[in-house]
């Protein structure tokens, strides 16, 4: 019995198939870009103001924080976990940072404190999920309530006003370099760094391995707990940074900033093609998802859609986005199959 050598021609078929598969993977991001382009083109066609400098700047600024949170969230989701506490963390950090700044703390220490508080929340989540092996959804829903309670407890009806904050911080939130505001630049830098790490580094790939099959990852000697902990640290830390940026951008905070944002962030991640079941997707997709959601929101306002219709349309578009993505993927899979046996 001799094993059959691959007949010529098969290799080509396989290549073609792979190119197609690759395309589908990239297409997740491509289709988002396309959807975005259509949306912007249509909106700008109806109301030219949409693409004015101010309009674009507003959208970028509005996206920045959501995208930042989506990047952190997608790292967690890729490991087949979830972090529902991000919204609460943003709220807590925004208030605490504002509070210490209003009491005269230095800018740099305050920012570091904010990120540290966020990372600490992530650490708690991460320890509970990875070392105590309790389900992520329950834990982070629990910490959502706890952190929110803490935030309200500290704030207790107080308000931080822009006048109490150092001008440097407000400049960070609203200033720009060469016409591009700082906030989206910060998000972009974070996204590229995290994205490159996840894609090109062995330890980064391990996040995908864990999400794809936790059991196999354990058997492969992947330090599962440490990676999951790291994912939560990243998510928490970025939520902390998001809180600081929130403060910088809005200047006024009460005890419930970003209330309810957990679902928004998860939406962005899902629309961005990160599988909720782990192992698939990229932070670029997640950030694009955030951009798409924000742009839809702005476009509806600019198009003078009745405010009562806005939410319904956003929901419908969200469904449309994930459905089209899915239908495309299924089509391609079928093409692959019919394209011939390997």
């Amino acid at each position: 019995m001799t094993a059959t050598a691959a007949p010529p021609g098969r290799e080509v078929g396989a290549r073609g198939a792979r190119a197609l598969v690759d395309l589908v993977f990239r297409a997740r991001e491509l289709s988002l870009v396309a959807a975005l382009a259509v949306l912007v083109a249509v909106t700008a066609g109806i109301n030219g103001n949409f693409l004015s400098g101010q309009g674009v700047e507003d959208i970028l600024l509005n996206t920045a924080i959501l995208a930042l949170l989506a990047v952190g969230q997608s790292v967690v989701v890729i490991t087949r976990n979830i972090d529902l506490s991000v919204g609460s963390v943003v709220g807590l950090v925004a208030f605490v940072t504002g509070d210490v700044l209003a009491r005269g703390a230095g800018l740099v220490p305050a920012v570091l404190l904010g990120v540290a508080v966020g990372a600490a929340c992530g650490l708690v989540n991460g320890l509970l999920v990875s070392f105590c092996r309790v389900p992520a959804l329950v834990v982070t829903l629990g910490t959502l309530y706890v952190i929110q309670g803490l935030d309200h407890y500290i704030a207790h009806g107080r308000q931080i006003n822009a006048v109490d904050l150092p001008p440097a911080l407000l400049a960070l939130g609203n200033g720009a370099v060469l016409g591009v505001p700082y906030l989206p630049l910060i998000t972009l830098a974070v996204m590229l760094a995290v994205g490159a790490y996840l894609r090109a580094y062995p330890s980064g790939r391990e996040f995908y391995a864990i999400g794809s099959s936790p059991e196999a990852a354990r058997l492969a000697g992947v330090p599962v707990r440490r990676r999951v902990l790291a994912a939560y640290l990243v998510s928490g830390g970025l939520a902390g940074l998001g809180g600081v940026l929130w403060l910088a951008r809005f200047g006024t905070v009460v005890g419930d900033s970003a209330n309810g944002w957990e679902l928004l962030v998860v939406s962005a991640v899902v629309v961005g093609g990160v599988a909720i079941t782990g192992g698939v997707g990229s932070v670029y997709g997640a950030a694009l998802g955030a951009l798409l959601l924000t742009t839809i929101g702005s476009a509806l306002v600019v198009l003078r859609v009745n405010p009562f219709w806005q939410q319904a349309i956003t929901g419908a578009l969200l469904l449309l986005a994930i459905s089209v993505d899915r239908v495309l993927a299924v089509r391609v899979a079928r093409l692959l199959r019919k394209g011939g046996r390997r």
Partner: protein
Amino acid sequence: MSAHPTLALAGVSKSFGAVRALRDVSIELHAGEAHALAGENGAGKSTLVKTLAGVHRPDQGRILLDGEPVVFTGPADAQQAGVAVIYQEPTLFPDLSVAENIVMGRQPRRSLGRIDRAAMRAAARELFGRLGVDLDPGRPTRGLSIADQQLVEIAKALSRDARVLVMDEPTAALSGAEAARLFSVVEALREHGCAVLFISHRLDEIFALCQRVTTLRDGQWIASELVAGLTHDDLVRRMVGRDLGALYPKQDAAVGDVALKVERLTREGVFTDVSFEVRRGEIVALAGLVGAGRSEVARAIFGIDRWDAGTVTVDGRELPPGSPTAAMGAGLALVPEDRRQQGLVMEMSIERNIGLTGLRSLRRGATISRRAERDRAADWAARLRLKFARLGDGVGVLSGGNQQKVVLAKWLATEPSVLIVDEPTRGIDVGTKAEVHRLLSELAGQGIAVLMISSDLPEVLGMADRVLVMREGRLSAEIPRAEATEESVMNAATRRAA
């Protein structure tokens, strides 16, 4: 050969609750030697493997590396020590590419410590070359057949350049060609001084590949000896503790009407124009190389996948495409190839798994009768000699072979008129295998039509009244029992299209 064994277990015991999986077991793996581990289902082979791999920690006893005691706190430690393991059940990352699965944790690097993807793919391609496999390193492993998954596992283990290679039933899902290729690769590794531990229920393979064999029975060490002096029967006696009758007891049964008729069945890109029929009392084997599309045909017949053209008729009734419920209603049963995903609900108890195909028949009034469920499970467990502690235990804790028995029980309990079995003895020990064969033969005798997919050629030749051979998605030959030989079947399976 050095004085110390490369890796050894000394007096190791391991219990899971009340189950004593290993009792004071010792084994020595020497460099340059292929060591077989034999035993019935549930004898403790996989547990021993997992102990060597650092997955389980022994309750008692020691692991010795080059004669020095070591403690493996996790799989990473064992890998560090140069132990590569192929587990009984594939452990792949379905969303990652084949190449990435192979090199996970040891990716080739380029500047700035980044992964070198081109090198990664090249490495995978080179490994597949050695194994004579044609798999695309760039595709995700999701959707690979069990056999291809097993091949990826093998490539993964080989890529580690390990000092100790442990293989838990690597050939269970493979057909002869791939297995032969694997053996030549292992042979080469062994000659380079690698210590090999090999587990298989196909005793021929043990005799072909290994120098030494250790036998386990009920978690206990029975013997470690040279293979050279042993006969087939000796080994079986060590494993089972008694002599066994004939392995393939297919009796001729009265062949009745056509029970299953498949006409011009086509699923684009998977199989084309498949036509055949199976009569009552007949066992028809579907043979072919891995990837020939046999499982796909079975899945389509049972309604798991839709077909694009053709018809399937059971007892004269045409089946709608894509409805397992309708297929079951017509008297079809399918014992699927992947028992973990398709055959069993791992978290459920033995009795509930067996009851799952009979949710209607177990009904008393509106609710399920637990007594009826338990009786049904107990009955079949006894008939298949299932080894278990309590019927209420999860199937997940059963050994691989015993899990397979539960799948069989679950489908036989539906009293089908047409039984399709996909690799029914995959991972089943010789004793049970004989039982399964007897059972299939008995069922055929009772007038059931059996369609058997198997990569185990002796099994095909021993059991089948007729052999259908598939090649690249088409039926390439139909060979009656009298003419079926290894050569004729393999020829039909591999012959190139002109």
